[in-house]
């Protein structure tokens, strides 16, 4: 009797021959505007899930988001922010950086994940950002692993970058995971944002597909 892996391989082969699809153009990324992230991976992978873990308070996840809004605005791409705990402050950003943004203000984590599931399937979007940083830990534990893989599968065929901001690593299907280990200090309150972005520390914690293979 053939082993299970062989059976799965043959099943995959059968599915691929029955339902052929265009090969996915791998290696495409959305530049983030954060040098530490762009240097490590070129940006956020399109057709994949990126997780940014904000371990400590004021570690710069919102700064990453603001840089992404700035970059996507310049490229006139559409962005969605799914705000689990309604924490986004539009007044912190230039008004022009908001015109391409769709802000979804959710009441709970379940709603946010459902909204992400809907939006990940829309062909008009370039970036979907799910902000789970202040979501209750119980709610995060309750999100089944299959849900994350479902989101990954929804993102895969599209030109969409799915970014998940979390307080700790909890997205098993993330293609890339960055950690933001350091907190800002009060001295940064007088610095310009491009300078803050340039100095932001982001360490690559996971990379499921090597760039060489992907391209």
């Amino acid at each position, binding site marked *: 009797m053939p082993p299970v892996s062989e059976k799965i391989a043959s099943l995959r082969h059968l599915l691929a021959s029955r339902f052929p699809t265009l090969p996915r153009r791998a290696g495409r990324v959305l530049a983030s505007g954060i040098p530490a992230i762009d240097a490590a991976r070129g940006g956020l992978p399109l057709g994949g899930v990126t997780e940014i873990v904000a371990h400590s308070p004021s570690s710069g996840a919102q700064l990453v988001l603001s840089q992404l809004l700035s970059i996507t605005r310049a490229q006139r791409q559409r962005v969605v922010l799914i705000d689990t705990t309604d*924490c986004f402050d539009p007044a912190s950003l230039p008004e022009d950086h908001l015109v391409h943004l769709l802000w979804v203000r959710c009441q709970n984590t379940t709603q946010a994940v459902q909204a992400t599931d809907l939006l990940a399937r*829309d062909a008009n979007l370039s970036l979907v950002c799910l902000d789970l940083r202040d979501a209750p830990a119980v709610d995060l534990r309750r999100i089944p692993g299959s849900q994350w893989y479902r989101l990954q599968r929804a993102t895969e065929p599209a030109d969409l970058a799915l970014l998940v901001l979390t307080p700790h690593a909890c997205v098993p299907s993330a293609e890339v995971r960055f950690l933001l280990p350091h907190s800002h200090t009060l001295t940064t309150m007088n610095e310009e944002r491009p300078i803050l972005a340039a100095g932001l520390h982001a360490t690559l914690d996971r990379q499921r597909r090597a760039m060489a293979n992907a391209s």
Partner: protein
Amino acid sequence: MFAVLHVADFALQAVLRTGLRLDNRPAALFDDTRNKSLVCAINSSACHAGVQLGMSAPQAVARCPGLLICTPRPAAEAEARATLHTVAFTLSPSIEATAPGVCTVDLRGANLPRLMNTATEAIAQLKQFGLTATAGIARTPLLALYAARSTQTLQWVRNEKEFLAPLPMAAADASPALLEILRNWGLVTFGDLTALPRDAIIRRFGAEGLALWNRASGGGPRPLIPVIPPQTFTAAMEFEHTMETLEPLLFILNRLLDRLAFDLINAHLVAAEIHLTLRLENEQALTFDFRLPEPTARNEILLRTLHTRLESIQTDSSIAALHLELTPVRPLVRQQGIFETGLRDPHGFAETLARLSALVGPENVGTPQLENLHRPDAVKLTAPLAVIPPPAVPTIHAPISPPLRRFRPPFPARLEFTGDQPSYLWSEPVSGEIKHHSKTFLSSGEWWQADRRWQRTEYDIELAQGGIYRLLLIEHAWFLEGEYD
């Protein structure tokens, strides 16, 4: 040349096409105008089960226990008639509503070599709309009608004498008394009658005989009473049984939209808006107006738009009738610019927005727009733009400080002071020793309105354990307003 589209048992088919999964079920239409209701039309399944015309309801049900008993429904017939006309307009702009289920088409100027294909497509289209039809093509309207009635699909009469000769006398719709006399004389087909001299028939039967002889010889060409193409794109339906679930309602909407979309395509128009009115059993009326993100005549998009909205609706009572109207516009013809960043799939985006609105509430989805006020957190949500405009010229000075993450509402906080300096923060999300703090920032506004005036003092603090936060002092009470991130 003329063509006739014929829908046999029109009243019965009109009723059956409005029901879900009724295609293969034995069904009979009962004439409810008399004291005793009798079968006046049956479908093939009922015929195979032994039901016959003229039977009473108990007799018919005794033969076929699963028989679906239908009564004529004028609204369903009107909708089926409109569907028949819509398809007939694909053959020619000059059509006539000759009788219920009979539509005569003047084929003058039609492309005759392609006519067979066009007529076959028309029959297939009617089948898709739930009507089984046949078609006849001939020199006269009457001949075309005979041809349509005597075939299962499509018949073109090329040799009139050969075609007419074997037709039974009953096909000429003569009076029963006259038919009885002719049968006694041994005249049973059109050929038998037309073999006799016309004058002799007139001498014996008068005008009635002449009319019959003319009908048996195929009649002659005549001007049609034209049907005017629809100027409005509306459909209405009253239900025999009120609807309590979405599935049968969507089935009906699909049927109606099929026809309306086809009407729009024939008129070279597209729909910009959908107006749907549902009349409930308790006489309430619910009205829904949809503005399509991009005008279209595609039935599936129109249906999806309705489906998305209706699946989140719960009515107080079941639905008794509906009225549907499409607002037509000319299709937008334009070429997409290379750098244009409009929506790739406008209908998909509108549907996603509708689903999101149903999930989180319409007031919680949109593009944030800062209000022209000094009041903090003065933001409103607006509908997303269809096309993203080019970016504005960047300001000379880039924004400073990390962006704020706002706690809505702010958390009440308690501060400990050492001397006049804050040294410790107590609050629900975070507590800890304050390492540094900024100078105060005072703001106020709308002081001229007693109920809207506000005044606040802000501090930025850094905790020893890490994290920069904004503190608020409002009327001697401290709050944690947000975290700089």
